[in-house]
Structure formats: C-alpha cells, structure tokens
C-alpha cells in the first residue's frame, strides 16, 4: 500500500515539477492535467471513490478545457513565444506569490485536526451516506456553492450575450 502511495506521489510531484520547467505552455497544461489525474489516483488509494471520479470528471473533463482554451485564446502571434529570461524582479515576485500560497496551504494543513488511521481500518463511505451528509448537516454549504455557481453562470451568459436581438446568430 505504501509502495503505491510512493508511486502516486512521485507521479503528482514529477508532473508538477516538469510542468514548471517546460517552456511550452500547452505541454505544461497537459502535464498539470496529469498531475490532477495523480490526485484522483490518490483519492482512489485513500478509498474515496466518489471524490476520485468527481475529480476526474470535473478537473480532467472540464477545468482542463478552460485552462487549454485560455492558453490558446490569450496568446498573441502564431509562434509559441519563449518565456523571457528570468530576471531578479521576476524571481522575487514569483517567490513571494508562491511562498504566500504555500504558507496558506501549510497553515491550513497544520491547523487541521487529522484523524490519522491506516487505510485498511477506515471504512469507505458509501455514496448514499455521502449524499445524506451533503443534504443533511452540510446542506447550507451546498446551497451557497450552488448559488455562487449559478451567479457565475448567469454572469458568463451576460458577458457573452452582447448581441442585439434583431441580429440573429447566422447573419454574415
């Protein structure tokens, strides 16, 4: 079991490291998707079946497309531009931003009271129990997230629909 965990973590960290080192943004994005797949494999290893499949469906199916489209649509010019030579100011800002995120994450992890058990002893939660938990004690957070996503969707529709109604889509 530990051996599998080592392989999975090597996959996640390796993909992330190579993604940072590469100069081609599309390759980096694809490796980032590989890293997400590794996270899904970790969830499977930990016995969280539902979360693992949701991770694949949402991250690899949907968010990957957002990332790839963003890379394709925001790049100027047709040739893949090499990223500039790293200067001191870039290094410092990168360090500050990365360090800030890392600090927040490490603080959150350390502040979390983890219930440490071995993988075998922890009973896997069935989907039904998960649903009951989400709809019962955690219903408020589910509703808040749903509202947030609905607002985001409406905003996207509003941004995209600047076309006048008297001008149909297929007008040249």
């Amino acid at each position: 079991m530990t051996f599998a965990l080592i392989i999975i973590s090597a996959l996640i960290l390796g993909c992330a490291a190579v993604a940072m080192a590469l100069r081609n943004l599309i390759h980096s994005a694809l490796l980032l998707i590989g890293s997400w797949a590794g996270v899904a494999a970790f969830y499977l290893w930990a016995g969280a079946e539902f979360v693992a499949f949701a991770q694949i469906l949402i991250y690899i199916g949907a968010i990957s497309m957002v990332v790839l489209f963003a890379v394709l649509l925001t790049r100027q010019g047709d040739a893949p531009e090499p990223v500039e030579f790293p200067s001191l100011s870039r290094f410092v800002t990168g360090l500050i931003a990365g360090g800030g995120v890392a600090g927040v994450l490490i603080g959150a992890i350390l502040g979390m009271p983890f219930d440490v058990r071995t993988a075998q002893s922890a009973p896997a939660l069935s989907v039904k129990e998960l649903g009951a938990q989400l709809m019962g004690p955690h219903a408020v957070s589910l509703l808040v997230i749903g509202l947030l996503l609905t607002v985001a969707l409406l905003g996207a529709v509003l941004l995209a629909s600047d076309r006048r109604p008297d001008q149909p889509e297929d007008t040249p």
Partner: protein
Amino acid sequence: MIIAAIDSYLEVAPLAWRDAVVQWCPEPTQWLVHHLITIVAILAVFGTLFAFTPLAERKLLGRLQNRLGPNRSGLPWWQNGPKLWGLTQPFADAVKALTKEDIVPAAADKLLHFLAPVLIVAFSLLTFAVLPFGRHLVPVGLDAALLYFFAAGSATELAIFMAGWASRNKYSLLAAMRALAQVISYELPLILSVVPIVLIAGTLSLQDIVLAQGFWTFGFLPHWFVFTPWGFAGFLLFLVSALAESNRSPFDLPEAESELIAGHLTEYSGFKYALFFMAEYFGLTALSGLGVTLFLGGWQAPCAFLQFIPSWLWFMGKVIGMLLLFIWIRGTLLRLRIDQLTRLAWQFMVPLTLINLGNAAFWSLTAGWTGPLQLVRWGVSLAIIVIPFVLLGRRLSAGRHPRTYRYAAS
C-alpha cells in the same frame, strides 16, 4: 426442472469457465489471471462487435439506399469460392489499415500526435468495466459506477484537443475547437438526462438500477424506466445527446466529409486513423450499453416467461438493437449546421432535461398514489414534459419558416 438447471448453468457459464482457468493457475498469480481473463473477454467480445458494426452499417445503409453494400470479399486464395455475403470485409479493412503508410507531419508534436489516438481508445474501453452485462456478469461492481462511466468518457475531450493541436495544422485546430464545442455542449444534457434515474432508483450503482427495473405487471408488462412519462422523455433526450457525444450522424459535423476533410483527424492516416474510428464505435457501443442499462431494463427479460434465456444474451441483443437504431438514424436524417447544433443543445435540450428532473421528482413524491389517482399521476407527469416540449419547440422555430437560402442559388 432440467430446463431450470441448464438455464442457471448458462447464466453463470462465463464465470464458471473463468474460475476453472483461475483454479488451474498457481496461487500467487490467481488474482492477476482473474482480472486478465475479464479484460480479455471484454476486449474479445466488443472487439468482434466493433469489427462487424461498420460492416452492418455499410450493409444496412446500402439497403436503405437501394444498394447492395459490400458483398465481394470472400476467402483469401480462393478465387471462385463462396462469397460469404461479404462477411470477411472487416478483416480486409483491418489489413488495409495496418499496412497503410503512417504519415506524421514534419512540424507536428510527435509525442502528442501519437498519444491522442492511444488515449482516446484507452478511455473509451475503460467505460465497459462497469456495465452490468448479466445477472452475475459485472466486471467491476462499483458503488459510484455511473459517475465512473462519465469520468472515463470525459477524457475523450482531452484526446480531441491533443489531436487537433499536435497536428500543427490550423484547420485541424479549428476543427478540434468545433468538435470540442459540440462534445462539451452535449455532455450537459447527457448527464442531466440520466439524473432522474438516479433520483428514482436512489443509487449510482448500475447493477442496482437494473435490479430496480426487474418487475412485471401481469407477467408481461416490464417496469422499465422507459415506460414512464419521465423515463420516455429522458430516453429520447439521452438518445439525442448520445448521438452528439459520439459524433454520429446527424451530429457528425466534426468530421463531415463534405465541409471539412475529417476535421481534427485530417493529419492522421493508417492505423492511427483507424484507432479514432475504433474509439468512436467503442464509445457508441458503451453509450448504447448505458442507455440499455438505465432505460431499457439492462439484462432483464421483457416478459417474465422469457427469463429462461440467459440475461447476458438479452443485454447483447438490446445493445445490438440500439446500434441498429443508430445506423437507421444515420440513414434517415440530415446533418445539422454548427449554430443549429449548439442552439439545440443550450436552448432546447438543457431546459427540457431540467424540467424532466422536476418531473421525476414529482413521480417519486407521488409513489403512494393508487387507484384512480394513478391515472392523475400519469396525466400530470405527461403534461409536465409534453407542454414545455411543444411550447419551447414552437418558440424556437418561430420565424424560421419558410427556409430561405441566402448563399445558394435557388
């Protein structure tokens, strides 16, 4: 009595054969052999089915168009031998695809160009793992099987993107964007059309969903979900979305021959092209299997007295029926334009699937109604879905008649 014994043996025969082989192997390798046999069985059965589906498609399309279809290929080295009605055509096609030159553009991203067809076939095969093929034949009995199915299917978008981008051809990339727009648009109604089933059955496990449909009224009226108002509407919505998801006609514009030469597959040739083709048919078969499982009772027999036929035969028969229906649709309907396609998805299918979800909620709330209230239940449920269908259809098609041709000479 004898019939019952044979029936129960046939029912478990594939499992019994597998266990016999596993017993014969040494102890430490037994788990590996156990899974390998399952994988090989799936590959063999659906590989064979894949080989003959295009042949059936060509034959059937030929007959629909008053032609004969392929009927020439006989046996090799036997010039005047029997023609076998062209049944050896798939093998000739396979040899042709294997021996064709594999051309990779000089500017292409070689690794991604190679990886895209591999990825798409691998993920389309993964979806077969959770389908319940029979009463005892479930390769992987997952609690969240339905979610797994869609998770495995979602990686095809990634492969389409990789194929279009790695070809380093702007037409391939544009076509990949079109294909992605279609696949992403129709994934929403596809998943939403399945949610009512989960709501009624109360489970994501495909085997439990099949078991929930295993009842008969008077012994011959099956309780399949398709025979309820919400289930029938859901089945039709699922069918249209499945057609669009698997790039089948009338939604086959990502690779339409006349408009864009094979779309994102332009720079693929030889066996890599055949792999994309294979993935398309595997995806279609898997979606047919899912549709059969969710709406058409899975491996359940249509009548109680027909249960003596093994359940896996019922499943395969229903899947083949669905495939023939898809071929029939291809021979009948005209291809859509891209704006019509996305409009259909977002303005028609998505609202209807959401309304159908509410319909299923009504159905599950009124499960206790009996006697004359049962008629009211059916009527209300029917009205919930038919009235929005008519109103939405009228509103969307208003002002679009008669059709005018702006660019073509009339």
